[in-house]
């Protein structure tokens, strides 16, 4: 009696999972075939739902258009600076939370969590004013500093949870074998935490790569890729927008593949 019911439930589960997958994949698939079809095909109607011929015409023209390679380069710079600074100052703080019980540790953690209630928009506008005064408006550093302010709290929380998952006894063992405290961190804890730290780096990259609002407000001429795309939305041809959209979206396909496990174990827990 119970057996067929369970089977029907399983079947429905598969149907639902496939339907949701189709919903998720459809826009990605469509923008991909658009970005790799000819100009004529992009403007044609009715559209081809299957790729007729793959050409790089649309992508090539997009990449060759004014300022795109520069904005791409700037996006990469901003993400790289964000990753380096976030990890350099966030990892030690994460280690401190995981390994020491010190006065103010809870308050510190709570403060980091509560930063999430404050949208990036709120700090972007005052930063734009300050940058103009200090003279770092329209620079990759300015944008990176805003992105760091946004990603640093989560970096600390994620690395803290990574270190908490590594047994302290391993460091103690290293210290009895002659390591100093710092070299035990460097030679034992950090290598073991590498996977989690790489996941954090990728998370910082994605956040920075995708961030539009602050980037669009803090730059005027020397824009990052999303800021450039946003500014050109209503003046650029459809082919440009589609190719740009694809370019913006493409890293997601790789990035999620690398960090999918971490997203569910570490990030899902820490994000609260």
């Amino acid at each position, binding site marked *: 009696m119970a057996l067929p019911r369970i089977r029907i439930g399983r079947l429905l589960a598969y149907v639902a*999972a496939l339907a*949701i997958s189709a919903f998720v994949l459809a*826009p990605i698939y*469509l923008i991909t075939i658009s970005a790799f079809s000819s100009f004529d095909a992009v403007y044609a109607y009715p559209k081809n739902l299957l790729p007729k011929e793959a050409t790089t015409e649309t992508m090539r023209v997009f990449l060759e258009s004014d300022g795109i390679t520069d904005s791409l380069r700037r996006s990469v710079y901003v993400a790289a600076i964000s990753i380096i600074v976030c990890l350099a*100052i966030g990892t030690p703080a994460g280690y401190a939370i995981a390994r020491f019980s*010190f006065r103010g540790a809870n308050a510190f953690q709570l403060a980091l969590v509560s930063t999430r209630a404050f949208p990036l928009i709120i*700090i972007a506008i*005052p930063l734009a004013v300050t940058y103009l005064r200090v003279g770092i408006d329209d620079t990759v550093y300015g944008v990176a500093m805003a992105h760091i302010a946004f990603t640093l709290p989560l970096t600390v929380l994620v690395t803290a949870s990574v270190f908490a998952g590594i047994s302290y006894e391993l460091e103690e063992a290293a210290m009895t074998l002659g390591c100093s405290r710092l070299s035990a961190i460097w030679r034992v804890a950090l290598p073991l935490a590498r996977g989690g730290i790489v996941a954090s780096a990728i998370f910082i990259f994605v956040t920075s790569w995708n961030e539009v609002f602050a980037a669009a407000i803090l730059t005027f001429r020397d824009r990052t890729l999303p800021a450039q795309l946003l500014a050109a939305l*209503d003046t650029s041809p459809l082919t440009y927008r589609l190719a740009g959209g694809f370019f913006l979206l493409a890293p997601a396909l790789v990035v999620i593949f690398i960090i999918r496990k971490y997203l569910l174990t570490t990030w*899902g827990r820490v994000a609260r």
Partner: protein
Amino acid sequence: MTTIAQETAPLTRRKRRWEGLPYWLILPTVVYMGLFFVWPMIQGFGLALRDESGNWTTSAFQTMVDDAAFGDAMSFTFLLILVIVPIQFVLALGMALLLNAKLRGAGIFLYIFLLPLAISDLAAGIAWSAIFTERGYLNTILEGVGVLEQPFIFLDPTSKTQLVMVVAVAEIWRSTTFMMVILFAGLQGIPRDYVEAAEVFGAGFFQRIRHVIFPMLKPSIQVALLLRLIFAFEVFAVVIALTGSGATVLAAEAYKWQATNENEHVAAAYSMVILGLSLAAAAFVLVVLRTPRERRLR
């Protein structure tokens, strides 16, 4: 006594040497967040509430409220949230349950379900505009199967309802994963025995969800809703990419006042409204989903 003290002496000395260490380790983060988060926020209040010469004034808020776009932005933002969040919550819970159901090919489903998490709102907006535009994919399909005789204008700037629906689809597509991740993490914390016990006693699928999973998942639900609502007030690039100037939201107005009108005071006033609404939403979730102490499970 003395022997114990002698024995522990080296230990406490070593400990004392490292007592300051955690503070040194967190210092850079504290300084950075102070300089680039707390200070700009205080500055933001100043920008919104003071004029060029430093006098306190509500003129920025006055300008903001008097602008016709303010009401439009406010209502569009709220409409979006009302449409998106309930649908998204059910969908996210369903996706999390599916991932938890250990289906065959779960790894592939996991990868696909997670994809939107790394996709920007701008890219999502552009991708969906290729679908919803008059000469786009959706009309191609609907005409192909014979539902439509001629292309339908989904992105009709005169129909607010249609614009809300279209943006809602794109936002549900993009940001449901975010809730799913949090809910899934919560689901994994529910011991299998509990669910199985309920099953043994004859609880059906929906009964299990209602009486076992829901109460135990409440903390995660709270967090997921809280963060989702906070981010919902920031919705920005999707709306611009999909509607052009057909619709506006609070963040888009903040952007416009800052970048186009070059009036950082009104832009800051908008950001304060967004902040206020985010905090109000957070408080709302905490109050509505509060678990009375005597009913707490853990």
